[in-house]
């Protein structure tokens, strides 16, 4: 489901990346990393282009793209929630935070809401175990996240984003729980 104009962007980016890094088999992972850095994810089209340029079957590109954790096959959301699943966070409520996000956004880790506003991911330890459980929102770290805070986070990003009203059929969000968002612990 590419948006308008996306096809061109993908083709242009991919050929630029190929020109810069050189179309060599050994460069496959740096190539995929460069495409993802510019587009935010690995579209199927880009992987096919790279396979053609390296003269290898597409499956040899899909393989690494799905094998390694840092590649994502879905476009990232405008705001990204990354729930830390390091040991300390998990033991103290990381799973609870992740469940709360799944429940509110109606997506699973690795996915993006249909309106591409939010995406949800799990990450391994981000190295601030003393703030556990931790959620990284875009590039900011939120410590000691409870389900109440999850509601608050989603709500605050929803009202910050200007597109709230034009998107009526978005995922089941926190509209009904607005009043609760700020209360509690």
């Amino acid at each position, binding site marked *: 489901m590419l948006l308008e104009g996306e096809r061109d962007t993908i083709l242009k980016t991919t050929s630029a990346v190929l020109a810069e890094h050189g179309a060599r*088999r*050994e*460069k*496959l*992972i*740096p190539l*995929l*990393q460069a495409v993802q850095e510019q587009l935010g994810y690995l579209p199927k089209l880009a992987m096919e282009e790279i396979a053609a340029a390296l003269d290898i079957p597409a499956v040899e590109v899909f*393989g*690494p793209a799905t*094998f*390694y*954790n*840092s*590649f994502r096959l879905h476009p990232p959301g405008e705001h990204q929630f990354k729930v830390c*699943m*390091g*040991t*300390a966070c*998990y*033991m103290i*409520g990381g799973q*609870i935070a992740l*469940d*709360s996000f799944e*429940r*509110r956004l109606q997506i699973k880790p690795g996915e993006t809401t249909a309106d591409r506003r939010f995406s949800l991911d799990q*990450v*391994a*330890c*981000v*190295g*601030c*175990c*003393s*703030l556990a459980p*931790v959620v990284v929102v875009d590039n900011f*770290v939120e*410590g000691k996240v*409870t*389900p*109440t805070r*999850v*509601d608050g986070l989603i709500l605050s990003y929803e009202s910050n984003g200007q597109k709230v009203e034009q998107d009526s059929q978005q995922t089941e969000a926190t509209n009904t*729980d607005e009043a*609760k968002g700020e*209360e*509690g*612990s």
Partner: protein
Amino acid sequence: MSILSATETKYQALREKAEAKLAPLAAETIIWIGTATCGKAAGAVEVREAFKAELKNKGIDAEVREVGCMGHCYAEPLAVIAKPGFPAICYGKVDEGLVTRLVDDFLINDDPCYEFALVALEPNDVFPTFSDFPRGVYENKMILEQCGFIDPEDIDHYIAKDGYSALAKALNTEPQQVLAEINGANLRGRGGAGFPAGVKWEAVVKQVEKTRYVICNADEGDPGAFMDRSILESNPHLVVEGMIICAYAVGAGHGYLYIRSEYPQAIRRVQTALEQARERGLLGKSIMDNGFAFDLEVFTGAGAFVCGEGTALINSMEGKLGMPEHRPPRLSTAGLRGKPTVLNNVKTFAYVPLIMKKGADWFKNTGTAESPGTAVFALAGKVENPGLVEVPMGTTLRQLIYDVGQGIPGEKEFKAVQIGGPSGGCLPEASLDIPIDFDSLKEGGAIMGSGGIVVLDEDDCMVRIARYFLKFTQQESCGKCTFCRLGTKHMLDILTAITKGEGKLSDLETLRELAEDVQVGSLCNLGRTAPNPILTTLQYFYDEYKAHIEEKRCPSLMCPDLIAYFIAPEQCSKLCNACVGSCPVEAVYTRDDGLKAIDQEKCVKCDNCLKACPIEYNAVIKLSPPALLAEKEGSTK
């Protein structure tokens, strides 16, 4: 060799230049902010900006600089103020308010605000230093010594503190002598297995093939371990220098630092370090005018735990799936592109310059006979002072947890310590006197691993922690070996059933059998060690498994399917709505008589109402097994 070789002359020049550049700093007021990833997460960037703004507003002449991580995670963000006339003082948990206060009281007037100070960095008459605390007594910082005290983005800071002198010394001797020194020190690889680094290097030297590589393994994937990241972010040149010395010893011309993509700041700082080293002739065609040529580059890993395994790492560098291969051939015979390759962990390389500088005997003075040197741990979980610690090998787990980490917070009771991450094991109270070294831990059922230590207290369920680590290895299993791919999946299914109260006692026997099969049927250490968390918890915490199976009860009140939340009517205030408001799924409601109650059908066991209930009522309680609920509810209706 002349008295002053070209290398020494070159090093002297570098050193003098660095010292001349830094000398004026001693007379200036400098504010150092710890901005490693952990510091940034706690708000170090905001603190840095606040200092800059305050200094500008009040027209004070002082410099704000960034350093790496000192290892005191519990007190982040940290700021050190070095003002001429005062000892350098470190402040913990700095926020904008404290910034204003410090600028007004300390920088403008001369009151160092000791009430907010954490520690002084140099001996003085007024305020204690690190060595005055129990942690300082047990800690012995070798490779972390400069972390947090030098600017990782300025090579001159490293050079001025004797940096790269070990390289100059090495280049002035023969490669065999360097090798002899490392062998003499019995430096064992810090990636977890403890294989002697010198033996690896020697194997490469013996090869006929002259194209050789040196690779630093910084694919630190254990959840809860961040020592390598911290070293690369705080003192990258130490690792770079170690790698150059290694390359000289084994005759390698090119090297790579394989850093995982989750560590963007480490990648950036290492790249800066490599550029600066190149500018000063410490990397390149003729290092320190010695004629020895070597260069380094960063390879960004794509995120796969199994790539910490040598052969898988090499495969991923060649653009393939990161799957391990049969050994032999070892990497020392056929590594990257089929050429002889040295692959060592970040910490192993970090010890190399120190051993070259101070000698093998100095290194062997610390630690135990079989495991000389220090061990670096990321201490986390239920301890008062989590953080990055470096203690001599042979320190006991008890000292590490109670003296260095200051024990368990609250009135809680110690239950277990998980050491070595997904490949390690959980050790109980009775094992706390095991000394930390490669061999003793193995006997105890855990492994040294790369150094993550998580302390667990009475609120942590051992079945759940075993399941957590198994889920991790199951997801990260590359799928090559059947036992690892399917065995871990089966074990996970059994554990999941147990945490849901659907287990049978015979499952425990199946678990043990599967664990043994996976151990022997897997090619690499990911699979061979994956059953460790289960085997150790089964061995030491069998009763907990039994309670889950026979009584459908989670003794630590942690497994969501085996607990129920209940609001005790005799404690509920009726007038307070905290629990109702806190519930994300509207399961908590007000009964007709004003008391609060929980609709068990809707409850998602998120713990929010328990946290929200004011401490003076403490009305929300957890029950396990959930069957107790009927009894309780019966008595209130």
